[in-house]
C-alpha cells in the first residue's frame, strides 16, 4: 500500500483540517486539445 492509499483511509485530525473546506470549494465551482 503506497502513501496515497494510506492517506485515503487514515483517520487523523490533520486530514479533517485539510478537507474542511473542500466540499464547499468543489460545490462552489472554485504555478479545451483534449487528442
Amino acid at each position: 500500500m503506497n502513501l496515497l492509499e494510506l492517506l485515503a483511509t487514515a483517520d487523523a485530525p490533520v486530514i479533517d483540517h485539510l478537507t474542511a473546506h473542500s466540499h464547499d470549494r468543489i460545490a462552489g465551482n472554485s504555478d479545451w486539445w483534449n487528442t
Partner: protein
Amino acid sequence: MPGEVITALEKSAVELTGSSPGHRLDLVWHAGEPLAVGLRRFTELVVPFEDLRRQERLHHYVQTNATLITDAWCAFLNRYGFRVGVSIDGPATLNAQRIDRKGHPAFTRITRGIARLRHAGIPFSVIAVVTAESIEQPEALLDFLAGLGCRTIGLNVEEAEGVNVHRVTPVMTRSVTFWRRTLAWSRRNPEVSIRELARLGDYLHLTRTGQGERWAARLIDPIPTISVTGDVTLLSPELAGTEAPPYGDFKAGNILDESLTAILAGAHRLRYVREFVTGLQACEATCQFFDFCRGAQAGNRYFENGRLDTTETDYCRTSRQALITALSDTVRKEETP
C-alpha cells in the same frame, strides 16, 4: 505587443468562447513586469477585449510584483475587472532576490503597491518562491504573507529552471520539514488559504468520498502562451523563447498565420507535445504519487532533463512528494497513541 497580434488574439478569443455556452477565456498578462508597458499602452491592449469581457466570456489576470502600482493603476485594474496575483518572496530579509531593473531590492516598493491594492479594495493572491533561506523559516514566511491581506498563498519551492539558474535546489529532507511545519502553521491559522494544501485537501476529499474519478478525469490545459511576435507556445510558458532546434523552439504556430483553435487542433502532431504525453504515461506507470500529482510539468521536465518524455523532476520531489510525505508523517504521529 503589436496591435496586429492583439487583433488576431481577439479574433481567436471570439472563436474559442463562442463554440459553446459557458466557455470563458482567462487572459493572463505576465512575464517580466506587465505594468512596465505603462497605463496608456496597457489600456490600448485590453480595450479590444471589452465586448467579450462584458459578456463574461473573458477575464483578465495579471501577475505583477506590484512595484509600479499607483492609484491610477488600481482604477485601471478595477475598471477592467482584473484578477491580480503578486509575486513576493517574504519579509525583506527573505525577499532580497526580487530586484528591480536597476538591481535594487524591490521589497519596499512591493509592499507599498500591495497597500494601494488593499486601499482600493482589490483582492489579490500572492506567490512566493521558497528559497534556500526561507525553507528554513516557514513560520516567518507564512506570518508575513498572511499579514499582507491576500486571498490565497501559493508556495513555489525553488527549482533550477529557465533564467533562475543561480539558486540551489533544496534537498528533499528540507522540503519535507518545510511542508510539515507549513501544515502545522496552517492548523494554527485555518482562515488562511494555502494553494498547495487546498489542492491536496480537495484530492483527499474526493478520494475519501468515493469521487476519485473526478480528480482523475482532469483535462490537460495547454496554456497557450503568445509572444509579442504572435508565436504560440504550449504546455509551459517557461518554454516560450527557449532555443531548442530539435523542438522547433517550442513554437506551435503563429497567431498571425492561423487561429488559436487551429493551432490547438494540430498540437498533437508536435514532437514536444508527443514527448510530453509519453512522459505523462511513464509517470502514471511508475510513480506512486501520480494519482494526486497527475504528472510532472513540461517546463520542469525540459529544463532539468533536456527532454519531455522523462518522469520525476525536482518540482515533483519538493512540491508534491515532500508534501505527501510530510502529511503522512503528521498522520502517523497523530495516530500513535
